[in-house]
């Protein structure tokens, strides 16, 4: 069991949710998504993002339109389809459950840890 593998699995799980939420706020092209993810402190490689977008698009979750760009070839701007909206809401509810559940579970850990440290210091 190596830790990197588990970390990458954890990241992978929320990746789609993050991407969809960025696109849901405002239609976006992959460059935007990368920047926003980086801005939020989440590392994401283009090589990971593109196939993911492609797959979401093929599944009918995303649609895109071409937008001419001044700095290069035309860009694909992605937006959520109605199906994608549904998909997103499902992910959202799952995430909320997960987040609160994980939070509830891990908070105890943190507290015991914290108190433990405090005790040690004292």
């Amino acid at each position, binding site marked *: 069991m190596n830790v990197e593998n588990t970390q990458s699995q954890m990241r992978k799980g929320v990746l789609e949710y993050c991407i969809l939420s960025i696109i849901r706020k405002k239609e976006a092209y*992959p460059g935007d998504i990368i920047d926003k993810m980086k801005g939020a402190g989440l590392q994401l*490689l*283009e*090589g*990971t993002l593109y196939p993911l977008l*492609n797959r979401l698009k*093929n*599944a009918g979750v995303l649609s895109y339109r071409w937008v001419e760009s001044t700095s290069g070839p035309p*860009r*694909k701007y992605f937006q959520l389809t109605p199906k994608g909206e549904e998909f997103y809401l499902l992910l959202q509810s799952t995430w909320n459950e997960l987040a609160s559940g994980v939070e509830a579970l891990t908070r105890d850990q943190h507290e015991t840890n914290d108190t433990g440290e405090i005790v040690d210091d004292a």
Partner: protein
Amino acid sequence: MKKVININFQGQVIAIEEDAYEILKQYIESLQDYFSHEEGGDEIVNDIESRIAELFGNRLKHGISCITDEDVEAIIESIGRPRDFDVDYEETRTAEPDASFNDHKARAGSTGSQAHSAEEPRRLYRNSGDQTIGGVCSGIAHYLKIDPVWVRIIFVLLFGLLFWVYIILWIVLKSRHLESNVTKRFYRNPGDRVLGGVCGGLAAYFKIDSWIPRVLFLLPLILNLIGMVSIFPLSRIFDHFDFNWNINGSMAVVYLVLWIIIPEAKTVKQKLEMMGEEEYIRSIREKVNDNAPGTKNRTNSNQPLHDTPPAPPAGTSYSAKTSSNAFSRAPEQSGCLNGLVVLLKIIFFTLVGIFALVLLSVFVGFLFTGTQLWPLKSLFIDSGYETHLLIISSCLLILVPVVSITAWIIRRLMKAKSRPVIGIIAAVLWIGGLATTGLLATRIVNKYNVESSSETTVNVAPVTATKMYVEMLPYHDDYSEFKVIYSRRSPFDNLPYCTINEDSLLYSNINLQVRNSTDSLFHVRAIAASRGRNLRSAKDDIMQFSYPILQNDSVLFLPEFLTVPIEQGFRNQSITVEISVPAGKSVEISDALSDYKNSEPPAVVRKRIRNFSRTYMPGDSNLTPKPQITLTTDTI
């Protein structure tokens, strides 16, 4: 000092150092390889290329003159190398370590986290992933789930027949990057080659030693050489065989064709398909031990460039991975041979282009002669059914391709989506046109099935004079010419004229034969001949001939034309007038008839005329009165 080249990358002109370009090229190849198993993989690669182009554009805007290898490395670092992508393949790789290389389909299905359909409907596409010309053959092969090489061989063998079919499919079918769906395929083997790797590929395919196909290819040449050395005692054995240069030449052509139509095994996956898994791994072991010298690592990255997703079985994965680097680079080292291949391909495509141009001009030529021949239609084609057939087939054959090609060009120009349905309909209509044309052609050809003749003896009053004069009776009225559009010396020389009120056809297909009479009298016979669907129809046609021969004392008048009802059309109708001249008398033929004298009657008539003389020597009617001026020496 570094060489800077300009490349057209995603529609942008980018100045880039040559080293950087090589790195970029290999990186993109590795991406293509990696994503080739993904649905829409080429689209992903294309998107990434666009992104790279954009990043290049940004860099160039900031005032640097060209893209260096540091730039490329930085961009690659930000986009990630295939091994860094953590979208999915990892989990399936670890989950199914024993998965063999050929079940990408199942893999794609299991990895697809979303609800995309695992099995897409089977459709005919052009395969952009494996193409010699347009990817049509490999698309068909993909549809039929067979090796593209077989389809290509069939296409090459039936080139003349299938050329237009190919063009139509090229136009009609949508292009797509298709995943190979056969587990064993013909490839040229870059690891075992003398010239193009064709023999090596054959050997790998049939699991035999590579010298066997090589010897087979060279066998005619070897035998020929043996045959040339005449001192060699066995050479006589080969005297019976005609091992000439033709065979050597054709073996070379076979080799070249195979070279062109068989793709080279470049990636690990292709090599696996070429020689089968165990065989491949064994060959890799050998390679690794040799540790291919001269493998220059151009990119200073330490992982293989062809990082192929389909992992070989767990136990051997290390050796396969390390050597894929050495193995797949091999072809790049032999730039000379590659140049040769490119040259051959250029020659091949030039030849194909010329051939296509010739076909096109023939097509256009047909179109023109078609309009030229139109007035003659009634001569060959009955009104009613056959005329309808002609109109339908010419519409289908000419209008359909013209309209659909034009439509296709317009759609391409408008960048509208191509609609394959229209193309398929057009193709079906065109093939229907071929069928109706065939039907019409057989009907027309059938009209000339048999040739028939019938003879009538013309009653000639006894001629008292020693000389009979033969004159032409000119046609009394105006007539229109069918011939007017042709040169005089055309193969349509014996086409008829049409009478002014368009009820009859006038044929000048009249032959004049002169022979010895068996008694002391002049005899004249008229032999009519015609072709027809069957003997009866030919005879019926002959019955309707009108060729009245008149006599006025010692002058015989032959009409200028043979007249037949216009409904008969052209059946190669002819009249042969045979004049028998008794001993001691002679015949003088008018100059007006000189065209008729030397012409040859049809075969069926020649059989009827005994002592038929092919060459008739026209004597000078005025000057040299010979006893029998009309006879040649061989007419006895």
